[in-house]
Each structure stands twice: as C-alpha cells, then as structure tokens.
C-alpha cells in the first residue's frame, strides 16, 4: 500500500460531525490494529485485505494496473445513477419510489440469453433467462421447447422472486439448541460434509443400510439421487407419488402395463371428457396440456366437458360443467359405460379384437350401473350422463378422457380411475389420433439418451419404501406410499438413523400435520436429519443440519416431462448465473459426501466434472454434418431437442413384428400370443403378427387377473412374462396383507360418505394457478394474487349451518371407515383427528353442497416472511437514515404487503383476504388407498362447528 502522507490527510480530510472523541477512539483502535495488536487484521493473513487485485478474467488491464484516467472511465459509467432506476423486475408501482423510466429502454441492451428449464412445478417448461451484469433480469418461455412451446405460467414468471429472494438460504446451518428450537449456527461445507459422512458411516457399521432414508419432494435430478443411494446401498428412497398420482397411475397400468401416464391427444380430439382435472391451473404438465386442449377446442371443434366438485378455472372454462358428489366420478363413468353398452354405441371391433373381455361379459358387468343409479350416487342428472356418453361415443375415436387428482385422490380413487379409463376402450379411442394416448417413455427416450452409467440397485428391502399393506403400489413402478412413512415411524414399525430430505415440505403438505411434526422432532424415530433446500422451510426447522441448495437457475439437469406431442424430447437445465452464497447442487454435494464416506461408496459414485457429464448424456443428440457445433453446443444454443423424423406414438399395438422379432418365437394357438424364451413378444391378428399391448393378454386389459392375483399375494410370473414390460410379484414380507381386488372395473362406495350428519361435509382440496403444493407461497408476485384460503361452502349448506361469508368455523377431521375396514393392520382406526382447524368460510355456489373446499399451498409458519405474510418485526419499527428498520426495503413488499393479518388471531377482527391462509392438513388424516397407496386428499368427512 502506498500511504497517504499524514500532513496531506490532516490538512485535506474533513473531520466527522460527531463528537471528536468518537473519531479519536476509532483512530486509536486503528493504530493498535495496524501495530498488530490483537491479531485483529484480516482473517486471511495478517494485514492482507480480502479484496484482491482482480484476476485476468475480470481485469481489463492484464499486464499493468489501469491508469487513473482508465480507472475513472469505468467508475464514471455508473456514478450517480439511483438504485431504483436500474432495478430490474420491479413493477412501476405508485408511490414516492416509483420508477421514473418505465419501461427502461436500455433494460435489454447488452444481455445474454441462457436456455434452461423451469422447476417451480412439475411441468418443467422450457425457459430462457435474460442475463445482464451477471444477474438474471427476466425469465421467459423458450419457444424451442417442444412441450411447453414458449408458454410459461405465473409461477415460472416469478422466477426472479425465487432466485433473488432476500431470505434465501445461503450457508450450511447446524442446530445449536434442541431439534426444533430454532437456534442455529453457520458451519463450513467441510464441517457439514464430514458430519454427514460420519453419520452415514455409522449406518453402514450398523449393518442396516435401509435405515438411511432419502425423502424427496419434487426431484428432477433423478440420476444423481439414484447414484448416491445406490452407491450407499439403501433402497429407502421415498417420494411423494402416493400423495400425488398413485391411483391414476395404477389404473392406467392395470390396462396398459406399458405406461402409467395417459397423454390425451387433445389437439386432434373432438371430445375431451374431464373428471376432476384442473388442467388449466395445476395438472402435471398443465402448461403443455392446457394449450393443446384449447387448440383442440378452437381449431378442431372439440367439446370439453368437466366433472368436478368445485368450479375450478378449468371447470368454469369448459363447454359443460357438472358437480358430482365427492368421490363419485367412477359412478358417473360407469353410468356412461352402461349407456354406451346398452345402446350399442361401442366400438365392437376394438372390444373384440383388442380387449381381453367379451362384449356380453362386459354388458353383464355394467348392467346395474344405469345412469339413474349413477345419478342417485353422484347427483349428476341421469339424462346428462346418458347424453354425454352418446356424444362421447359419437366423437370417437377422436375422443378421450382426462382425469387426475380430482377423481384419484380418494380412498376409492383406483376404482374411479379404472372406470374412467374403461370409457376409452368402449369407444375404441385407445391409442388413436385424437384419442386416449400415452408414451413408451415419460419424456425423453432413455434408451437413446441414457444418462452416464451409475451403480446398480441394491437388494436390501425397505419396508418404508414398499409397505406391505399396499398391493399395487410398487409392482409396476416404484410409487411408494409417502404418506405412510411418518405413521410407520410413529408406531415404531420402522426407524431411521439418517434422514436426508430434499426439496420437500412434508410438515406443511403431508396429511396429519401433528403426526409429521411429532415424528420429525423425535430423535428416537429419526436419529439424524439433514435437510437440503433453497429456503428455510418447515422441514428445515425440524432438521439437525440444513444444506443450502441451488435454485433451478443455478444447476444442471437433463429433463423432460410427459410429451404431449407423443414424441420423446429432451431438454437441458443449465446454470444461468453462479450460485448465490455457498448454495450447492446435489450434483456437487453427493460426490463429496460419497468421497468422505469412502470405501465402496466412494468407488461406486461416478465422479465426473458436470459439464462433461452432461455432454456425455446428450452425446446422441444429432447435429447436422455441416453444423460447426457439438451436441452440447446445440443444446446450449436451442435448449431442447425433438426428433423431427419421429412419428407420434399412435396405436403402438398395431406395429407389425418383423422376421427378426419372430425368429425363434412360438405361437400359442389358443391365445394367439407369440413368445420367445417364454416372454411375450406379440400377438397374432388377421394379417399377421403385431406387437399388441404390453400386457399379459397382449390386449388392453379391462379384466385384470394380474391385480387380482397380486392382491392375494399370489405368483404372477407367468403373467408378467407374457407382458414382458412391467410387473413383478410382491416381496415375501407382504404375506399376511392379502386384499381382494376385483378384476373388473367397479364402483366402490365410501362408507363414511353414506350417513353423514347435518353438520358434516366432505372436505376436498385444490391447487391455485399461482401456487404449487408447498414451494411458491414465498414468491411475492404469486402470493399477492393468492395468499388466503378460506373454506368454500355452498349457500344452501351455509344456510343450513347458519353461516355467512367471513364467519369462522371449527373443523374436526374424521379418519376413514372405509380404510379402517380394509387396512386394519395399519392401526389408524376410525376416530377423530385430535387437532382442530379454525378457518373462515367463503360462501359460494362454486362448490358441491356436500363438499367443503380448502386450497393447499398456504398457511406456512416458516418459509420466509412473504409466505407468512409478515412484513417484519413491527415491534422494532422506526426509521434509520431513511430506511425502515422493520424489514428489508422492497417497494413490492414492505410498502405494499397489504394482506398482512393484524387480527392477532381474533376471528372478529379478521378482515377478508388478509393473512397467509390455513393448513388443511391439520385435520386431514393419513388415508392411503389400500390398492395403490394414493393419499385421499378429497375424501375426509369433517364436522363443522360455527364459532363466530
């Protein structure tokens, strides 16, 4: 350092306005420090500044320091520009601090664009980040993504709120006080890695690798997670599928085996029959799906009919909308099936050729399900049920059903969805253009674009990942039964030594909040809990160690979602900017932990530089011979790849078998099935051998011997050999949990819905178009739109209960009688949930009179001040140098968070649309459908008591 002469300083430096003694005290301290007293200089080395000469990458003056004039030139570029004038992403709000230059004509000058993928919900749309000065100033849809095609929903538009949130978790934290006490200290990554590795080694030494449990919410980093768990040797890889889509998947798999996910060919359809899907707001793949539904309607004249207990935006924007009683979608579908069969409106050729039942048997099975019966069950008029069935059949084969959690998330969800799927077979729209379609792979073609090789799956069984009570949850896909995990731990049927949670907020989003909370705080049930998340959420608050995870704008993945073009595609998530703070992706965290655990785990985990690993993954993306770029460079330039020569996955069952396919194959004359080495390869039809469906009968299975035998824990190897796609026996430890699964579609009434009291309703759940389940309430742009979730209640019901808009009620949740009867071994019983929920009501005709609807996503007690609708600690208050001490200064938040609830919990003082909402799961019991493991979010009977 070249020192400034003391005399120059003393003559030119102006002195402080404060007491001279204060300045002298600082000078005295400074003199001591400069003399080396107290070792109080920089933490790097004594007297060495933390601010260093810039390296060549940022220093324009590589060979020499800048001259004064050069330095001043850079400095002058930005001198005197007020902060707000250049703050991107802030709306032109009214008030004294509003932007004066909006829109800013220079905002998009000198920007870079980075193609990537959204991950604020499950739809993973293609996005493009606009990056300027090293930070993202806008995120928009990438038109080159073949699935989302440039569209991006409100959540995705709020990406900046997520990326630069003032309460992001940026450093590893270790708890200092008791678990859940809220006392933390920052530790280094080295300390964190060592601690986790030591805990994992203890699990290894215990000889119980399954007691290392990994619990994910939304994971799009499947390869890295699988590699990590396989390298360790645990199969306790838990997910949330049971809370999401298990019943629908099981219903599809029953008939198709090949795929669990139907992808209606909506743009080419003439009739879309929607049972409880909220495609326009929240369905998995909703951005890709909704635009194709609308294209089908407006370009192809498709009719769109919705059945839902609540008028969602999808229902309200349908051509026709009906409100069935909760959990009776299956009855409506069966009523339609009856009409189609009894009026001979079915596709006889398809039924005879391509299903495994006779028309006579089918008619016999459906005989009792008349539209009148369906009306008596569902309240939907019989004449409408019959009329819609006729319209649906007339539109076929360009007709398809659509369903999701509305029909599935019931204790009888599997049966609802099997009845819905059946309709497509009756009218012969299965696999046809405009009909009920699916893909051989979820999104990208894993055979053509395999992820780099990792370790193989371990053999150790896991009772938490495959609980024995749930017959079909894991025999095709590993659907798990996430909602049962905490109950198993509570009842000591399992224990976890190390629990690693990843992008999950189960205390808020899982049923029966108190069970989740008590188990997560119980160190006997969960020995050690490490939480990986970008924000300090409810899960983190109950952890021992919290690791800051990157946002989706800071990490790598290869990804795709159910491909609505019916062609596989591939997209890439790539960092738009450097990670903030010390946030790291699991692709960096896992190998380092594996390295420190050492031994076989370190040897098994593929340690590769990340861009190199990604390049290997996409190496089969074809690039033109004359193109001067690699596949990786193509992905960087475009963001996604879809093979233009690939035909849509229509009628795959008609694919002719080649001579090579048939070489060495044997034909069973009785069934017409071709087998090779005992495994099914196709089916003989008039005109030759074709692939057929990938089921045991090589036909679309309306009748399923497989599910019947699986329920009984019988051997199904002969069936799965013929299917030669998916399906396996239940493991031996499932014995004793036999369950009678009827092989035909049927209606299965929910016991507790039959004799409800006058003060009882069926509580249903829903999701808004600006939120996902538990990860968006922290986004201020989204939460300003929706932050409160009072219970929807029909005017007739309100009148009967003496309720008016804004009144508060107390809800008592009841466990399911239906489940208590069918899965007694779980010990859940049939009583009340101990906790009560006090919530405001909104009186609206947009909900069925027997139902009460409460949205999820809200009611956080952690997860940032925005999610809690808290501006800050008001008791601090006051102004300091023009700043509000009570909170960060944010024009959108501090000044405009008008929805903070000032009632102090007093219902009489509550103002409508204030606060951050309520947690429905407080009174929603753990209720897993015994067939698929689907959590029944929409079946719970609640007793309603007025309190104001």
């Amino acid at each position, binding site marked *: 350092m070249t020192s400034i002469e003391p005399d120059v300083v003393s003559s030119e430096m102006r002195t402080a306005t404060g007491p001279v003694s204060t300045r002298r005290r*600082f000078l005295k301290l400074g003199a001591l420090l400069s003399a080396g007293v107290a070792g109080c200089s920089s933490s790097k080395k004594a007297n060495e500044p*933390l601010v*260093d000469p*810039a390296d060549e990458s940022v220093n324009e003056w590589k060979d020499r320091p800048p001259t004064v004039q050069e330095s001043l030139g*850079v400095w002058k570029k930005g001198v005197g520009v007020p902060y707000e004038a250049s703050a991107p992403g802030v709306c032109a709000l009214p008030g004294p601090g509003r932007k004066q230059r909006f829109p800013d004509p220079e905002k998009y000058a000198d920007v870079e664009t980075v193609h990537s993928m959204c991950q604020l919900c499950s739809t993973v749309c293609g996005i493009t980040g606009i990056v300027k000065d090293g930070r993202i100033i806008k995120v928009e849809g990438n038109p080159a993504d073949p699935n989302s095609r440039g569209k991006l929903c409100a959540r995705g538009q709020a990406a900046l709120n997520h990326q630069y949130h003032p309460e992001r978790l940026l450093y590893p934290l270790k708890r200092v006080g008791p678990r859940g006490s809220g006392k933390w200290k920052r530790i280094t990554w080295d300390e964190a890695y060592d601690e986790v590795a030591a805990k994992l080694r203890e699990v290894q030494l215990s000889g119980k690798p399954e007691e290392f449990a990994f619990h994910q919410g939304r994971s799009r980093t499947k390869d890295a997670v699988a590699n990590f768990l396989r390298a360790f040797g645990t199969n306790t890889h838990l997910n949330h599928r049971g809370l999401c889509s298990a019943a629908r998947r099981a219903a599809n798999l029953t008939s198709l085996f090949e795929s669990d996910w139907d992808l209606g060919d909506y743009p080419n359809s003439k009739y879309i029959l929607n049972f409880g899907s909220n495609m326009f707001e929240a369905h998995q793949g909703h951005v890709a799906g909704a635009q194709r539904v609308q294209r089908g309607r407006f370009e192809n004249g498709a009719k769109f009919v919705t059945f839902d207990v609540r008028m969602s935006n999808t229902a309200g924007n349908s051509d026709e909308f009906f409100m069935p009683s909760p959990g009776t979608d299956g009855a409506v579908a069966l009523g339609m099936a009856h009409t189609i069969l009894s009026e001979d409106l079915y596709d006889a050729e398809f039924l005879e050729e391509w299903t495994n039942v006779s028309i006579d048997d089918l008619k016999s099975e459906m005989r009792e399900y008349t539209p009148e019966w369906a009306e008596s069950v569902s309240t939907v008029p019989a004449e409408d049920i019959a009329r819609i069935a006729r319209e649906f059949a007339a539109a076929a084969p360009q007709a398809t059903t659509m369903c999701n959690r509305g029909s599935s998330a019931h204790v009888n969800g599997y049966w609802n969805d099997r009845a819905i799927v059946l309709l497509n077979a009756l009218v012969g729209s299965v696999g046809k253009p405009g009909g009920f379609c699916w893909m051989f792979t979820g999104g990208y073609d894993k055979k053509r674009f395999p992820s780099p090789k990792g370790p193989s799956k371990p053999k150790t069984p896991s009772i938490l990942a495959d609980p024995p009570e749930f017959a079909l949850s894991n025999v095709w896909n590993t659907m798990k039964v996430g909602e049962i995990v905490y109950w198993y731990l509570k009842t000591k049927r399992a224990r976890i030594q190390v629990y690693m949670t990843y992008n999950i907020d189960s205390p808020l989003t899982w049923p029966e909040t108190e069970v989740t909370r008590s188990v997560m705080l119980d160190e006997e049930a969960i020995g050690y809990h490490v939480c990986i998340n970008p924000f300090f959420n409810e899960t983190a608050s109950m952890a021992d160690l919290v690791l800051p995870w990157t946002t989706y704008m800071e990490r790598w993945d290869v990804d795709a979602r159910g491909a609505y073009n019916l062609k596989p595609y591939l997209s890439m998530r790539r960092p738009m900017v450097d990670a903030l703070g010390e946030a790291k992706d699991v692709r960096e965290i896992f190998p380092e932990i594996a390295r420190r655990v050492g031994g076989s785990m370190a040897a098994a985990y593929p340690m590769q530089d990340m861009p190199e690993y990604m390049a290997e993954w996409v190496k089969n993306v074809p690039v033109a011979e004359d193109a001067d770029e690699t596949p990786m460079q193509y992905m960087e330039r475009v963001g996604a790849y879809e093979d233009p020569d690939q035909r849509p996955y229509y009628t795959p069952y008609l694919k002719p078998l080649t001579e090579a396919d048939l070489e060495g194959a044997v034909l069973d004359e009785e069934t017409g099935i071709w087998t090779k080495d005992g495994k099914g390869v196709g089916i003989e039809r008039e005109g030759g051998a074709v692939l057929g469906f990938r089921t045991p009968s090589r036909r679309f299975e309306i009748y399923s011997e497989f599910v019947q035998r699986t329920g009984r824990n019988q051997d199904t190897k002969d069936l799965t050999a013929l299917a030669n796609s998916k399906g396996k026996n239940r493991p031996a430890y499932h014995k004793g949990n036999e369950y009678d699964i009827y092989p035909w579609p049927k209606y299965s009434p929910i016991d507790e819905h039959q004799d409800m009291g006058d003060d009882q309703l069926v509580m249903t759940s829903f999701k808004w178009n600006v939120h996902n389940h538990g990860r968006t309430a922290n986004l201020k742009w989204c939460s300003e739109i929706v932050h409160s979730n009072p219970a929807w209640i029909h005017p007739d019901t309100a009148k009967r209960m003496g309720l008016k808009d804004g009144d508060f009620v107390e809800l008592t949740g009841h466990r399911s009688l239906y489940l208590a009867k069918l899965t007694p071994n779980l010990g859940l019983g049939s009583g009340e949930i101990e906790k009560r929920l006090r919530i405001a009501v909104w009186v609206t005709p947009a909900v069925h009179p027997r139902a009460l609807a409460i949205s999820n996503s809200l009611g956080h007690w952690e997860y*940032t001040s925005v999610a809690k609708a808290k501006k800050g600690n008001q008791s601090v208050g006051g102004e300091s140098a023009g700043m509000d001490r009570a909170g960060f200064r944010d024009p959108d938040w501090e000044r405009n968070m008008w929805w903070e609830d000032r009632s102090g919990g007093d219902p009489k003082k509550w103002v409508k649309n204030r606060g951050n909402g309520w947690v429905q799961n407080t009174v929603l019991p753990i209720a897993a459908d015994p067939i698929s493991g689907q959590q029944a979010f929409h079946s719970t009977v609640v007793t309603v008591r007025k309190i104001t």
Partner: protein
Amino acid sequence: MNEAESLAAVARLFGDLLLAELDETRLQGLLEPRARVALAALGIDVPEVRDGGLDELAADYHAAFLQPRGGGAPPVGSLWTEGRYEGALTVRLRELAKSAALEVDPDAVRDAPVDHLGNVLHLWAACIDRAPWVSNELAAEHLAWADAPLARVEDAGGFYGGLAGALRAFLNELSVTRIPTGS
C-alpha cells in the same frame, strides 16, 4: 500512521467481524488487554467464554447477521435497498471494484455477497490509495442503507449489538470522510 490508514484498519476489523463468527483465535486477540479496552471504549464488550460459549456466540451471530427466516438483519445492501439479492447496488459495487482493478475474493469472504457491508468496508480500505474516488463514493453514497440493519442488531444487545452500535458510529465517520484524490 495517518488517519486514513487507521480508519482502514478498523474497517478491516469490523469487516471481518461481520463476515465471520468469532473463533478461538480471533476471540483471544480481541481479549488482548489494550484491544479490549479500545473496543470497550466504543461500546463493544468482548465476552470471555467457557465451554459451549463459542457455539452460543455463533448462534448469536447467525441470529443477527444470517438468519434466513426474516427477523434477522443480514447487512447486505441490496436486501435493504431493493428487498432482494443482486440489486443495482451489487452491480455498482462490482463496477467500483473493477475500476480499481480489484475483486472480492469469494473464498476469503465466505461467499458473502459483494454488497455485504463487510465487503464494502474492505473495499473502502483497499481503495484509499489506489482509487480514492472509489472510497469516497462508497462512503458518501453506498453506506446509508446499513444503518437500518445495524440498528436492529444493536437493539438486540450482546457482543454483536455492541459491534453494531460501534459500526453505526464508524459508518457515520466514514460518510463524512473524504480521501484526497489528487485531482
């Protein structure tokens, strides 16, 4: 020793204390009698700790300066000027550092944001000779926001409350300090 260098030494110490919890070595240094007296004169009471005391101090540090849950007061400029990370202040500070051919060493500052007050203090100290106009702009234009978080921490008391109080006074000194630029 001139005034600017003395103030720079204090800026570096305060920057360090903002950027990291106290460890044993640092704490022993602060407890050195002359340093302890000088710090006490500024309202900073350096505690003597027993078993587990460093953890408690680390928890206090976390609650004061890191707390990612609201309620804390991370001294990061963009949070207080725009309610977000990577605001316009961050961009300007990068430009200022660049104009002096300097950069914040992310490892040394534990990946603290560029506009973390600890970094700003270090940048101020680093520029008093090589780019005094940078130090002057920092002092005159980019420190006012820091009074709000420091006031909140000061209200909470304890070692970090004392540090925050002293820092408020120190920033006040810097804000009226002009380093001659020679032009």
